[in-house]
């Protein structure tokens, strides 16, 4: 068991900061179409906020995202990406051709939605992986 870093200052700072981190991550993900950002950045930010809480408040505070769950998240996230690509095959498009997905919009918008879908997958995948790697490297048992 590692020593807790928890001091009043750190705890308070985390309480104040982490919600903004999370919000910012979601913003980066959703707003990737309009400004710098996207799945990777969002995923890393999410992972960072979870790891921050984890580091400061102790091993048991992981918000349910321990190493094993993180693997599953990573695998599901990345699969969402590939899965959306495969979905396009069923509507007659090529792999990753989001334009053909039946979302009832004109093509550029459908493509934008598809992009959002895969970015979400990337976010989950990157988040999961970073949590896994970080936990492994810091030697934390689940």
């Amino acid at each position, binding site marked *: 068991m590692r020593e807790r870093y928890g001091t009043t200052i750190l705890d308070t700072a985390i309480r104040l900061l982490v919600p903004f981190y999370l919000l910012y991550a979601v913003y980066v993900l959703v707003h990737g179409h309009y400004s710098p950002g996207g799945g990777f950045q969002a995923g890393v930010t999410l992972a960072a906020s979870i790891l921050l809480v984890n580091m400061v408040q102790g091993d048991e505070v992981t918000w349910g995202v321990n190493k094993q769950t993180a693997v599953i998240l990573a695998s599901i996230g990345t699969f969402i990406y590939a899965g959306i690509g495969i979905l396009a095959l069923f509507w007659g498009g090529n792999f990753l051709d989001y334009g053909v997905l039946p979302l009832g919009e004109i093509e550029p918008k459908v493509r934008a939605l598809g992009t959002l879908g895969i970015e979400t997958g990337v976010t989950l995948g990157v988040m999961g992986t970073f949590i896994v790697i970080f936990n492994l*490297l810091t030697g934390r048992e689940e």
Partner: protein
Amino acid sequence: MLTAVAGYINFWLIAILLLVGVYGIIATENLLKKLMALNVISVAIILFYLNLGQKAGSTVPILLPGAEVGVVNAYANPLPHTLMLTAIVVGVATTGVGLAMLYKIYHRYGSLEEPDVLKEMRQ
């Protein structure tokens, strides 16, 4: 003369950075430092690509609100940026795997100096 050089000086600096990285891999005996040198190489290459994407007087490749679509020279080339996002991620992933291996090596051999590790390993 100066203007002639100005267009290329970035490449020279990048080449030097790259060779610093290569030298680091060859010359240091600490495995962790070698891994860091590897990252220097990857940074040099990223800079090389980004340099290719630059255009005089251009801005970030995000469509300006209300701007006319299709003024090619108003925006930087987005392709190198995309490629380098990928390259950065690849670099990070490789570093992660490398660190994991180093972790294991350090636990087993108690050292990250290459000669020590090899000596121990060949026994």
